[in-house]
């Protein structure tokens, strides 16, 4: 097969979506969306509101059944991947009830639930995984604080720690940079690099183009279907972006703040 000439194709495929179609009671949300994501890469999923970013995530997590096409994660079906704790979802802050009486430790420990027995009793190894994850996001000293007492950026890091503690190989991040300060942004970008080196794949859903340029190796432009897919520098053309954003080319902010770091 001639594709083997490419060294990249020898890499293990984390996500393989093939001609995916999703419709909600007849309303087409996504059609013919194909995507192949290698292990150890950070991929930006860029599109307008309603372009199907959330639907794509939901399909990858098995929340919606594609009407056509198939998804393989680490070469397995989505439900098998779920049982292997392969997929972690990091939610937007707004989706979380911040007055819920749980501590940071409790939240990160939730990442280990899938690996525990049905009574969810943490073993020593689970505790170590939680401590390790909290250290990596620099929240260990906050572990006893209620989740609601954290700032937006810290909360985001706590949920990232949960995904790390889960030891998922595919991380789905929903608007990870919305409302975070520079310090958190820097920490997260370093973390992404580490996770990438571990061979994990990160899919970041965002409409913030400046961050995509900085953090993502590959980018997927979507508007109901995959419009363009490839290395960030190649895909980020004004023509492609105009297509993604329905004729309006958003001026990619040149990153005046982040470039000072």
């Amino acid at each position, binding site marked *: 097969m001639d594709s083997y000439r490419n060294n990249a194709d020898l890499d293990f495929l984390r996500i393989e979506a093939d001609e995916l179609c999703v419709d909600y009671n007849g309303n087409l949300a996504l059609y013919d969306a194909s995507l192949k994501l290698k292990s150890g890469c950070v991929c930006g999923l860029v599109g307008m509101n309603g372009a199907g970013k959330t639907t794509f995530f939901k399909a990858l*997590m*098995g*929340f919606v059944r594609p009407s056509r096409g198939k998804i393989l994660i680490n070469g397995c079906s989505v*439900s098998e991947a*779920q*049982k292997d*704790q392969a*997929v*972690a*979802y990091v*939610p937007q802050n707004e*989706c*979380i*009830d911040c007055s*819920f*009486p*749980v*501590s940071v430790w*409790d939240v990160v420990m*939730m*990442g280990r*639930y*899938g690996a525990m027995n*049905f*009574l*969810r009793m943490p073993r020593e190894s689970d505790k170590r995984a939680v401590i390790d994850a909290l250290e990596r996001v620099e929240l260990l000293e906050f572990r006893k604080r*209620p989740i*609601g*007492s954290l700032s937006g950026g810290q909360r985001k890091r706590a949920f990232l720690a*949960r995904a790390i503690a*889960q030891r998922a190989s595919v991380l789905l991040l929903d608007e990870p940079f919305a409302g975070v300060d520079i310090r958190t942004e820097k920490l997260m970008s370093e973390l992404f690099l580490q996770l990438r080196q571990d061979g994990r794949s990160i899919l970041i859903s965002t409409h913030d183009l400046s961050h995509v340029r900085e953090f993502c190796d590959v980018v997927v432009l979507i508007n109901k279907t995959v419009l363009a897919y490839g290395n960030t520098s190649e895909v980020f053309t004004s023509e492609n972006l105009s297509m993604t954003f329905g004729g309006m080319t958003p001026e990619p902010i040149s990153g005046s703040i982040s470039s000072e770091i």
Partner: protein
Amino acid sequence: MHLSFLSTSPYSFLVDPLSHEFMRRALMISSFVGGVCGLLSCYMTLKGWALMGDAVSHAVMPGVVVAYALGLPFSLGAFVFGVGSVALIGFVKQKSRVKEDTVIGLVFTGFFALGLVLVSKIKSNIDLMHILFGSPLGISDSDVRQTIFICLIVVSVLIIFRRDLMLYCFDATHARSIGINTAVLHYLLLSILSLAAVAGLQTVGIILVVAMLITPGATAYLLTDRFDRMTILAVISSVLSSVLGVYISYWSDIETGGSIVLVQTTLFLLAFLFAPRYGILKLNNSTNT
């Protein structure tokens, strides 16, 4: 109202009523039911299911009547109608454009009205007042056994699935993404809600049972930021309310159900005013503890 208990000594206040068999039984069953409903109330308040609790507890009414009429265990009928009402709410919500709280209100009043009509039509020895307002002082042996059996089921489910249910209330998306079947958890929680409503019905009656299912949780929620502590505090406040309520009802000859719920409401008011961090008086203003 008799206020004779104010002049009795604390010792005889507590011990005198215990000489009556019906009082010992009422205290036992009320505190048991109180503890179970208190534990469940944490999940109800955190999940935002207060209205759902109200709906299910009212909707079991026709089930209780039908079960009595047919000579079946009342809990069976109540359970069928409790779960049925929830399924109906879900179905109507999905298939129509009517908003959820409207559907809930619509379905439970419909079920409740059906229950009232059935009581008046089926001539039997069902005492409507007992169903509506509870009668822990006059509870029969078979009802005691049934109620304890129900409570044991609810407690076992809540203990075995406490982490899963907590996660489901907090972040259902994460629960699903790690392969936990949240649909099962959803209906499990609704089923034990129906069961707890039937148990609570024995002590405070259909109309006030929703208080048992939310007030202790709300009180505990004002007192702590830890889920485990919240469940313990809710159980304690709920059991305390039941015991105090039954005693006060005995000594001042007032309706037992109302008395229990009033104690619960008083405890909530105390927490609302004096809770260290979340009380409106803010007795402890430090935010970093």
